[in-house]
């Protein structure tokens, strides 16, 4: 056990599974970096250095830099997965799913069902989500609701180094296509992470704080925003159940409904969009299955319905912050 960053935790999960299982391969743009250049071969590990060192350990047969052809290489990864390999593919920014959406939602997602269960697609797609780097609307989205729309995919949104390692390990061992969403502002977050491999089951929310006055469901980086808010609220005497679903498909509906049964109040804090997003999804679940327990409106704390601006001040207004969570919780508690 040692303090590790989210970045290291992800790297360790991949290394662990690649050592464990020779069928695990890694593909993507610059996952090693340096292919064909005049310098070092294992130069980058992706633009943020997450997979650095893997080429050196596992060689070019298992760590493949690709051309900038997401449809081509994700299609290839699906084919490789259908053939028995377990590819871990890097789709740098999740926004780039735009150029390979067919492969992800029409092929990987439907492959098993459409062919009547003949195959399994043990594919993991790692991808970066989230705003906060002033890189505008095509590099800052959080598209897990769009992935979650499609049956056949599993969707993971780890909020901490510990969860990142355990969930990625599960993703790679899982026999279905998994979209693993890494929040780009979390890479340098540190916490204690075991050196050995461990798998966190998919579909189990983690209860980060037990309160009883209000249920706050938060995802990915918003878990930390919600957690800061909960600490402040506690000082006001408002005790929060803080739930991090960790995976949106499968979604741990039971834990959410159970908590709301106790609190009667629900606030969802999410960085994905306000229309057909994850907050809507969870709100709709509770409005149907937990209605009898509800004592206040379900409040969604999400960005507004707008593309993501580059300017840091506008971007800061875009992303939900502690104050918006405080307002929302106070509102439902006072209802």
């Amino acid at each position, binding site marked *: 056990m040692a303090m590790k960053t989210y970045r290291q935790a992800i790297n360790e999960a991949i290394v662990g599974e690649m050592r464990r299982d020779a*069928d695990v*391969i890694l593909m993507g743009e610059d996952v090693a970096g340096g292919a064909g250049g005049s310098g070092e071969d294992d130069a980058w590990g992706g633009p943020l250095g997450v997979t650095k060192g893997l080429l050196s350990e596992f060689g070019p*047969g*298992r760590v*493949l830099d*690709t*051309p900038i*052809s997401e*449809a*081509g*290489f*994700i*299609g*290839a*990864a*699906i*084919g*490789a*997965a*259908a*053939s*028995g*390999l377990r*590819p871990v593919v890097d789709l740098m920014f999740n926004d780039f799913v735009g150029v390979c959406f*067919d*492969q992800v939602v*029409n*092929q990987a997602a*439907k*492959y*098993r*069902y*459409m*062919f*009547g*269960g*003949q*195959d*399994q*697609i*043990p594919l993991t797609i790692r991808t970066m989500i989230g705003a906060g780097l002033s890189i505008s609307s095509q590099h800052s989205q959080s598209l897990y609701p769009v992935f979650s729309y499609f*049956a*056949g995919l*599993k969707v993971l949104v780890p909020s901490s180094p510990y969860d990142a390692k355990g969930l990625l390990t599960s993703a790679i061992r*899982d*026999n*279905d296509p998994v979209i693993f969403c890494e929040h780009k502002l979390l890479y340098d977050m540190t916490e204690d992470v075991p050196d050995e491999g461990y798998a966190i089951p*998919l*579909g189990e929310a983690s209860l980060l704080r037990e309160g009883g006055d209000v249920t706050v469901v938060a995802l990915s980086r918003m878990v930390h925003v919600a957690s800061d808010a909960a600490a402040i609220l506690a000082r006001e005497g408002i005790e929060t159940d803080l739930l991090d679903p960790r995976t949106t*498909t*499968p979604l741990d509906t039971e834990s959410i409904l159970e908590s709301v049964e106790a609190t009667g109040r629900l606030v969802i804090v999410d960085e994905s969009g306000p229309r057909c997003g994850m907050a809507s999804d969870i709100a709709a679940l509770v409005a149907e299955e937990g209605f009898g327990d509800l004592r206040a409106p379900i409040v969604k704390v999400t960005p507004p319905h707008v593309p993501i601006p580059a300017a840091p001040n506008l971007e800061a207004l875009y992303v939900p912050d502690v104050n918006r969570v405080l307002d929302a919780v106070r509102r439902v508690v006072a209802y």
Partner: protein
Amino acid sequence: MATQSRTELLAAYRTMATMRAFEERMHIEFAGGGVPGFVHLYAGQEASAAGVCANLTDHDVLLNTHRAHGPAIARGADIFAVAKEIYCRGEGLCRGRGGSAHLHDTKNGLWAANSGVGSGVALGCGAALAARTRGTGGIAVALVGDGAVNQGVVSEGLNLASIWKLPLVVVVENNGYGEATAAGYAIAGGGIARRAEAFDMPGVQVDGSDYFAVFEAAAAAAERARRGKGPSLIEVEVTRFFGHFEGDAQTYRSRDEAERARRERDCLANFRRTVVAEGILDAGELDLVDTDVADLIDRVYAEAEAAPYPPDDELMEFIYADSL
């Protein structure tokens, strides 16, 4: 010319005759209203899949297109299960989930066409990569249409296959049309083989009404792939005898285009003429095959039509391999 034995050639004839008879009958059944979904017939293109598949082993993967019936039969999928899938029955290849355009049979190395046309090239790269990584000795052959070659994923796949020297053969079945739009209009420069050159792989054009030409080109390409020399592309020129899909009035082509092809570019007739003229097979044994096939097709359709749909309570089966 042909490097196949008498027995192999007889089998090839049987395959093509079966493909043809299957489609001629499908045309009638569809018109009768009994076939669900959209149906794209392969009649006229038989020598392509047959010539290609004659070069494949159990370790290889054939990536089908939406014009899927013929290639499925050529690849050796159970023809009863093929028909049942087209009829969306529970005993179909895909348990009725996929239908006519998605004939997929993993155990026989047949992968369905998938959604966006042309994706087979990318999936094929993956099959080829896996074959090499796992040392199975297998290769992948991706069928695509002339229309599909204008999908970006095809170019991406060609490039990927080339830089990774994958054991992949891309077979472009150029039947002159993508739906109602002519290849001559849609493909810059008209030729497809030259795209192969742009991606640094050999590209050849063969006459798809000539089984032997297809067989030989496929043999060379497969051999190249197996030897680790990398991918190649074969453009097979064919004419489809029916419309794009059943129900197509085909006003975009002249009235006699298909009829002329039936008269002049029928791969079955050509095959028969050649093997008989060269004394390799005799007309009588081919006739026997025809009779056999006719009987088989009767049984296939009777069984398919009578087969039950998938059980209602299986709607939610096969979504995930590991529990949700």
